[in-house]
């Protein structure tokens, strides 16, 4: 039931059931407005549940839900029950994301805002939450500006900056696979900053850039760029593509046999992407932001088991962890400070260390004062086409501490201004 293409059991009955479920349960739902009691502490999640990022957003939501259940079991926030309100920001329409942020803040009066997977939305909703003075934890938007040039006093981030990702992996690439690199870079801020990060490393180590192809976001056919990469004859081809672009580019690179001639590598990689690739395309050196198979780290096993229960038996990915950590952060800091005042909480979060049962990482994990960036461990390793366990598609070779990979606060461009 857990794997194989027919795991969804598409037969007549389940289609009918599905139709009935869509038709009845969900038609009925809109007209039964659940009473949103005033005495609950509300956490709003503004994340994509439809479109390209739907899977990532949904996984983050599952992580949030697990955290809320646990928090409520342990007495909630300030003794009050916690409620998670989630809104679909869509994957591409930032206007909708902003609107939903307004909705959560203005109408539902949430105490905390979480989200977004999409960097642009993370930035845009950060503006809204800052204006409304609501503590905001960015779950999964990686662009550096969130905790860099566009940082806000109320905005914290649990996922890494792109620079942390490139710094963590570049030494290994350089030492083990060669010093001539070619970049396949998606043409938007995320890709650009990743490439800049790698270029900085190259400069430091004295390597050369064989070239770079800027690929439009949403490219379906990568062959022109792969042809160019092949012609440049590098040691390593670095794929900075994410999500659907990563699936398409890697799938095609393998079909062209590039993996047999060059080493394939990149920065951020996600379990969701590896699962979407055919076995022969699960290759290369990457960075994971969290990984479920950490036998020696306490509490991870319990977390994996708990997520499996909520997730059709599938293991948690970094996205689940993002949702889980950001939700727990709200509870931990509010209970520690005994207040919901955003300014006080934000000040207390500077330098706040996550307890190991939440951090789920071997090293100390803390929010850095100054830019509000979480400093987690990074998992450098390589993709595995077929693991011992079906979902074990990544092998961790080295764990890099976030504090070692991140730029110092002074170089991030972040200057937090606190409200008067």
């Amino acid at each position, binding site marked *: 039931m857990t794997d194989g293409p027919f795991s969804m059991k598409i037969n007549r009955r389940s289609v009918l059931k599905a139709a009935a479920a869509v038709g009845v349960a969900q*038609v009925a739902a809109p007209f039964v407005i659940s009473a949103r009691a005033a005495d609950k502490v509300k956490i709003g999640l503004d994340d994509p549940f*439809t479109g390209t990022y739907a899977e990532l957003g949904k996984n983050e939501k599952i992580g949030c839900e697990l955290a809320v259940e646990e928090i409520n079991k342990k007495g909630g926030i300030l003794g009050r029950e916690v409620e998670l309100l989630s809104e679909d920001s869509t994957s591409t329409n*930032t206007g909708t994301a902003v609107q939903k942020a307004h909705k959560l803040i203005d109408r539902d009066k949430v105490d905390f805002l979480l989200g977004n997977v999409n*960097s642009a939305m993370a930035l845009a909703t950060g503006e809204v939450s800052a204006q409304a003075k609501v503590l905001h934890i960015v779950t999964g938007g990686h662009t550096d500006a969130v905790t860099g040039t566009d940082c806000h006093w109320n905005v914290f981030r649990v996922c890494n900056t792109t620079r942390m990702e490139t710094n963590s992996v570049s030494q290994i690439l350089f030492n083990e696979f060669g010093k001539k690199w070619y970049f396949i870079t998606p043409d938007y801020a995320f890709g650009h900053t990743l490439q800049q990060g790698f270029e900085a490393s190259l400069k430091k180590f004295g390597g050369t850039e064989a070239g770079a192809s800027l690929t439009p976001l949403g490219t379906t056919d990568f062959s022109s760029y792969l042809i160019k990469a092949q012609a440049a004859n590098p040691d390593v081809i670095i794929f900075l593509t994410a999500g659907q672009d990563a699936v398409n580019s890697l799938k095609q690179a393998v079909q062209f046999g590039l993996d047999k001639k060059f080493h394939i590598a990149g920065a951020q990689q996600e379990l969701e992407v590896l699962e979407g690739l055919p076995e022969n395309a699960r290759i290369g050196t990457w960075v994971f932001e969290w990984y479920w198979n950490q036998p020696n780290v306490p509490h991870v096993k319990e977390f994996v088991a708990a997520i499996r229960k909520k997730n059709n038996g599938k293991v948690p990915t970094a996205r689940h962890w993002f949702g889980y950590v950001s939700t727990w952060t709200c509870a931990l800091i509010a209970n520690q400070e005994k207040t919901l005042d955003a300014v006080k909480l934000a000040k207390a979060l500077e330098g706040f260390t996550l307890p190991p049962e939440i951090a789920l990482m071997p090293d100390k994990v803390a929010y850095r004062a100054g830019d509000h960036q979480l400093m987690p461990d990074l998992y450098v390793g390589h993709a595995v086409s077929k693991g011992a366990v079906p979902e074990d598609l990544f092998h961790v070779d080295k764990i890099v501490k976030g504090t070692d990979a991140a730029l110092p606060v002074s170089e991030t461009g972040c200057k937090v201004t606190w409200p008067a």
Partner: protein
Amino acid sequence: MNSTLNRQIANALIWALLLTMPYWIGFVGGYTSLASRVVVLALAAMSLNFLLGFTGVLSFGHAAYFGIGAYGVGMTIKYLAPSTPLGILVGMGVAAAAAAIIGTLIVRLRSVYFAMVTIAFGQVFYFIAYRWNAVTGGDDGLSGWRTLPLDFGIGKLDIAGQPLTFYYFVLALFAVAVGIMALLLRSPFGRTLLAIRENERRARFLGIPVEQHIWMSWLISCVFVSLAGTLYALLNNFADPHDLRWDQSGDFVIMAVLGGMRSFWGPLIGAAIFVVLQDYISSQTENWMSFIGLFFVLIVLFFPRGVVGLLRRKAAS
């Protein structure tokens, strides 16, 4: 005479509702910035309907001009000069120029073909916004600017700080735009547009140069849609390539049809229903797209004349 009286009552009612919307929308589950969104999108749908409902020409690419307005205001404030009114004017000006050029290329096409070509041309602007990272911010959208207070010389009005102030700012511009469109539709020029909608061949043989009039109607429609686009960007403090995409155009069309294409206020009603419904359903279920899709299908099959058409038929019977 009775119908004129009815119309005046309807007008008064609509303006009364619009003027008080921020105060009652909370009771129906909304919030002030949702009210602004309704008015902005209503302006877009009514502008589209100037072409669709009153000239009989189907554009499925109006989002492009909406988006040009949005980027126009954002880029002006970000790169050119810190002035909201200037930004609005630039946004509308650029959209007008684009519409004028595209218009000359397409006025000879009709019905489905016109729709198809407007979609395709709309995508050009979408791709410019989406791909030209250095200038438009690409997929990340155009951020790093914000709505600036209006400077009246004697004092400043901060339209961005309070959702309520912004709502009335939007409503004021809405009133001006809608007023101009209403006057145009009652003018001899407006009547030639109706003539084209009703019977293009007849119009041509009455001595109306049909292409020229369609081009002008297209231009007017695009300019007002771009005004809506500038307001939308000011509402979000953000311009987004998605604003220019064809599915956004589809939303405008469905708003017009839902409310009633033959009616001046129809698209306003359609926009209100659509925006509130979408806001509501998308909070209730992740499968909101199915409902919106189904909604499209049901409207087409059962309410092709829209809410106003339905009301009129009831009133007539």
